[in-house]
């Protein structure tokens, strides 16, 4: 029943060398400090009030379930007090039957029969406490799980619908931390910390009330230890908080160093940098180790302070009981009840005292989640008329990122329906920005982008999805079945066997069907993270298959053949041609073979269009494109 370490009693299996509530395997968040995205705006963090409002909102969706969980918890905590009370009665019965002086008045020699009502109370109390605590634990866990599910869906839903311009500002690092780390912290808190803290708090309050009910002076004796607890907390918390933060940072840095050294083993080997990397891992691991030991020393001192508080409490309750029994106010059984109640208090008090850090970090994560969930939704665009045809017009477009210098200085470009145009230029020429503008991902600072005569930014999401698709520079294979990856692009309503047929046709169209059939489960094979690893070429073929399935009038390909080994690039170019056949296409080209096959080539430099024309004309014109082509073709 006694504890000297808050983590131990509730679950000895969770006993760890770390601080309470911290898993040693948890790599923790990324190290803090100056980051390369430091200049970037972060997503909003909710105030404490608004974060709680978000939780209350989730709980209020099923008010009677929440009320039942709280009510059952209170009943269970109250029933936990029956045993000490009954045991006190038992002591009284024995003392009375044996004619001891400190027993209560009255009583007759009934022998063993006198035990029956007390035992009935003990057994009945155990039955009721068992049922109530089981129901309460289930109800609290279920209410928590529902609230958590509501919160995480709201957050992810909001994140998925963030406009691209916001993404450009924030980067994905902060988003990943929120849907990953923060959701994990809150999940753990709801599953482990909240039920324990709730049950412990109720038990502490009800036990204090029960002690007072035995006699108010015993109640006072019981709370004499409180100042010691408060003093211990006031000493411990300001010291432990920063140490835990340092420890998490150090553990994160240690994992990063290990991961970096292992994943980069080939590079490390080529550079003969083994010793430097190993020394880095060793230094960071030593730092994490030293912090863990410091945290532990601090915690054991806090544990000693808790022991002191417990000793003070036991002495106070025994002493008060002694004087009250001597004065005839209490029976020896009542004192026994008080002592047992007090001993029973150590567990819940320990849980409350050692949960502070967990509660604080869960609160911080909750505020970050609520901050995202409560971001205002983008205003619905004014419904523009549906595009009249598959033409594209870029009119005097200037673009700058967040008030920075312009990256496009007045670009004009028109694509006739079905025309294929390739954009060529060095890094930083503005090719990808132009692609994102045409796809409606970004809104131009000045000028207009028209699809079939309608402003692309004003199209509603479904109209835009049908009109234009951007195959972005970033290649991503969604984790799960390959079939589901491609199906991500399916128009709404396409489901079941029809969807599978459409996916198969799309894979066929980009020449991926052959290798997909050789996978262990064909199109149902799990790919992406945790599944079969696809080559960069295969991943890009999937991206093109998504384009075929989405079937837009206009396709924008941003370096869709990049990253593949050169030998694979030719096959990808064939796939890209097949996927864009019949669509108005703007392709940002890495390889000039793509440019040669386009109807027209646009050469960009420094945010301007410097040359436009058919491949043969440009080669003949002896401008910058002709230079490039000569180097490329070895001519």
């Amino acid at each position: 029943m006694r504890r000297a370490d808050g983590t131990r009693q509730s679950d000895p299996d969770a006993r760890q060398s770390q601080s309470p509530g911290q898993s040693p395997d948890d790599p923790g968040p990324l190290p803090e400090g100056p980051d390369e995205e430091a200049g970037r705006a972060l997503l909003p963090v909710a105030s404490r009030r608004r974060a709680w409002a978000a939780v209350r909102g989730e709980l209020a969706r099923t008010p009677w379930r929440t009320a039942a969980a709280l009510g059952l918890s209170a009943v269970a905590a109250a029933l936990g007090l029956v045993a000490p009370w009954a045991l006190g009665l038992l002591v009284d019965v024995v003392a009375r039957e044996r004619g001891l002086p400190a027993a209560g008045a009255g009583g007759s020699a009934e022998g063993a029969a006198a035990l029956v009502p007390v035992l009935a109370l003990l057994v009945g109390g155990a039955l009721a406490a068992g049922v109530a605590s089981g129901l309460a634990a289930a109800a609290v866990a279920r209410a928590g799980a529902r609230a958590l599910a509501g919160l995480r869906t709201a957050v992810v839903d909001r994140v998925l619908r963030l406009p691209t311009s916001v993404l450009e500002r924030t980067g994905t690092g902060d988003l990943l931390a929120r849907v990953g780390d923060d959701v994990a912290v809150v999940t753990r808190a709801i599953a482990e910390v909240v039920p324990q803290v709730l049950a412990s708090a109720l038990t502490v309050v009800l036990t204090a009330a029960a002690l007072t009910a035995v006699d108010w002076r015993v109640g006072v004796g019981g709370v004499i230890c409180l100042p010691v607890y408060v003093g211990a907390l006031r000493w411990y918390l300001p010291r432990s908080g920063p140490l835990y933060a340092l420890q998490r940072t150090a553990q994160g840095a240690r994992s990063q160093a290990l991961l970096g050294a292992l994943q980069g083993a080939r590079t490390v080997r080529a550079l003969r940098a083994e010793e430097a990397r190993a020394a880095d891992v060793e230094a960071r691991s030593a730092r994490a180790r030293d912090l863990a030991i410091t945290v532990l020393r601090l915690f054991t001192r806090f544990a000693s302070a808790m022991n002191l508080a417990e000793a003070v409490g036991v002495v106070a309750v025994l002493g008060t009981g002694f004087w009250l029994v001597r004065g005839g106010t209490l029976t020896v059984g009542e004192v026994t009840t008080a002592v047992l109640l007090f001993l029973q208090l150590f567990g819940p008090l320990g849980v409350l005292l050692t949960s502070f850090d967990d509660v604080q970090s869960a609160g911080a994560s909750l505020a970050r989640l609520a901050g995202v969930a409560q971001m205002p939704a983008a205003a619905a665009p004014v419904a523009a008329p549906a595009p009249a045809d598959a033409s594209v017009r870029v009119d005097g477009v200037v673009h700058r990122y967040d008030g920075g210098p312009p990256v496009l200085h007045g670009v004009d470009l028109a694509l006739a329906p079905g025309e294929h145009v390739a954009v060529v230029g060095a890094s930083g020429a503005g090719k990808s920005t132009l692609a994102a503008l045409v796809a409606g991902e970004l809104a131009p600072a000045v000028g207009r982008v028209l699809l079939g005569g309608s402003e692309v930014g004003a199209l509603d999401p479904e109209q835009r999805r049908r009109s234009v698709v951007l195959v972005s520079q970033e290649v991503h294979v969604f984790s799960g079945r390959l079939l589901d990856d491609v199906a991500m692009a399916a128009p709404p309503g396409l489901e079941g066997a029809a969807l599978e047929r459409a996916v198969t046709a799309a894979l066929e169209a980009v020449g991926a069907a052959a290798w997909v059939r050789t996978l262990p489960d064909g199109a149902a094979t799990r790919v992406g993270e945790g599944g079969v690893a696809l080559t960069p070429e295969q991943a890009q073929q999937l991206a093109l298959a998504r384009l075929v399935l989405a079937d837009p009038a206009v396709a924008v390909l941003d370096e869709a053949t990049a990253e593949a080994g050169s030998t694979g690039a030719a096959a990808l170019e064939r796939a890209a041609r097949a996927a864009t056949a019949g669509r108005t296409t703007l392709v940002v080209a890495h390889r000039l073979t793509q440019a040669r096959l386009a109807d027209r080539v646009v050469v960009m430099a420094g945010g301007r269009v410097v040359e436009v024309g058919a491949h043969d004309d440009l080669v003949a014109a002896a401008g910058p494109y002709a230079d490039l082509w000569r180097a490329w073709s070895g001519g």
Partner: protein
Amino acid sequence: MACPLLGLWALCEVLVPVVAGWTVDRAVLTGDVTALVTSVLAVAALFLVLSLSYRHGIRPLLAAQEHEGHALRVAVARRSLDPRGARHHRADGEVLSVASSDAERTADVLDAVALLVSAVVSLGAVAVTLLGLHVPLALAVLAGAPLVSLALRGLGPLVTRRASAQQEAVAATSALATDLVRGLRVLHGLGAAPAAAARYRRSSDAALAASLRSAAADGAQLGATTLLSGAFLAAAAGAAGFLALRGDLSVGELVVVVGLAQHLSQPVRLVGAAMARLAASRASAARVAALLAEEHVAPAGGLAPSGSPALHVQGLRTGRLTGLDLDVRPGELVALVAEDPADAADLLDVLAGRVPPGEVGRAVRLDGAAWADLDASAVREVVHVEPHATSLFEGTLATNLDVAPARPRTGGPTLAQALAAAGADEVVGLDPRGLDRPLLDRGAGLSGGQRQRLGLARALLADPPLLVLHEPTTAVDAVTEQTVARGLRALRHDAADPAAPRSTLVVTAGPALLAVADRVVLVSGGRAAGTGPHADLVLADHRYRAAVLG
């Protein structure tokens, strides 16, 4: 020292209810002030010993455990980074898990032993105390506590099954969320955000259903535990009450029996937990030991290479290579075009030391010395094989670029020259902090092209006598590829010191790089199928044209 102290601590824990019962007997029942004072002193002494024994027992124990975990982690990291490599290739994730959780769990053995000691001491103390009070009652209580624990194990499999189903479902949901965010730009490009949100909601609902089922099982287990331990307590209290009525036990002894009966479930559970922990620790220790005992690819020792970058490959058969011939003379820039990229990968595995030198034998020579006779570790001072998927590390751009230990030759390229030749000066110029720009998450914020150019600049700065590059320009545009090709040629070949010639072997199909090479070798079917300058091969060889120009 730690174990006896923790045993003492466990003993004190047992003694708390004993002292309380003793106080009731001696002081409260009698009203004797002297007895009360003695009791208070006893309580104070007990808590003092309890607190000190815990503090001074647990500190050295857990500190030793931290030191052991650290030592194992560092040993695993050093073994994985050993330049002589390991015969059995393991996935990074596997090595990481051995270096983190297995190292930690192996060190846990200390904790598990201490846990076992304190649980055994607790059980012993409870047994001795109870037996001293009343032998039949003691036997009944001591037999009953394990029976209650066993009975509660009955629900264990259900709870475990539901809990692991729930953990899996929650993990899947959280993995889906991060996966969707990583692919967010792709989703935006497709206008598929609503479809993705619907997919997430389905996954979250499934996780919720699993959580609800698991909550029911957890509740049942907690209820059963509360009920059974309450019933056990009632039985012990009833029996002790009956004995006290008969006069076999005093009132205080009744309190002691009840207190100990309540305490008993803890050490019983601890024994089970300690055994489970020992088993897990042994399994982890076996994995750590297997990794540390892994055989090296190359034996230690051998000839030191002369330092000349003359590479002579004749009749190399390994993997898919069926007798490859290839020469790179000092000062030469040679390009290799492979119809099947796997052929080139096999050659690079040999040059990077991933194939046991004994298997290579004399098919590869460095300045005349057979590969098998050379010291594999020293070969890296002459031959630098830059991987295609180059890795950046935490730190700043500057610390990432200047990584390799200096070579015993001065007059290599400056940082500015290397950056310019790789077209990476533009990457450095993107950020106002320039070379001091920190890289978070190992450069994840950089584009593929930016990473590729930084990796190339780093390899050029290392200035190895023979530099082997693997598809170094696949992620850069045609304009930049041309800059890189010219820069590479100028830096390593045109402007090189004739006294210390530099050779370069580039595996590529990029026309701009091929155009600046002295010679291009076409590899087809595992062997050289043609050689000559790029311009000649484009005109003369249709297979070459197909491989390079698509």
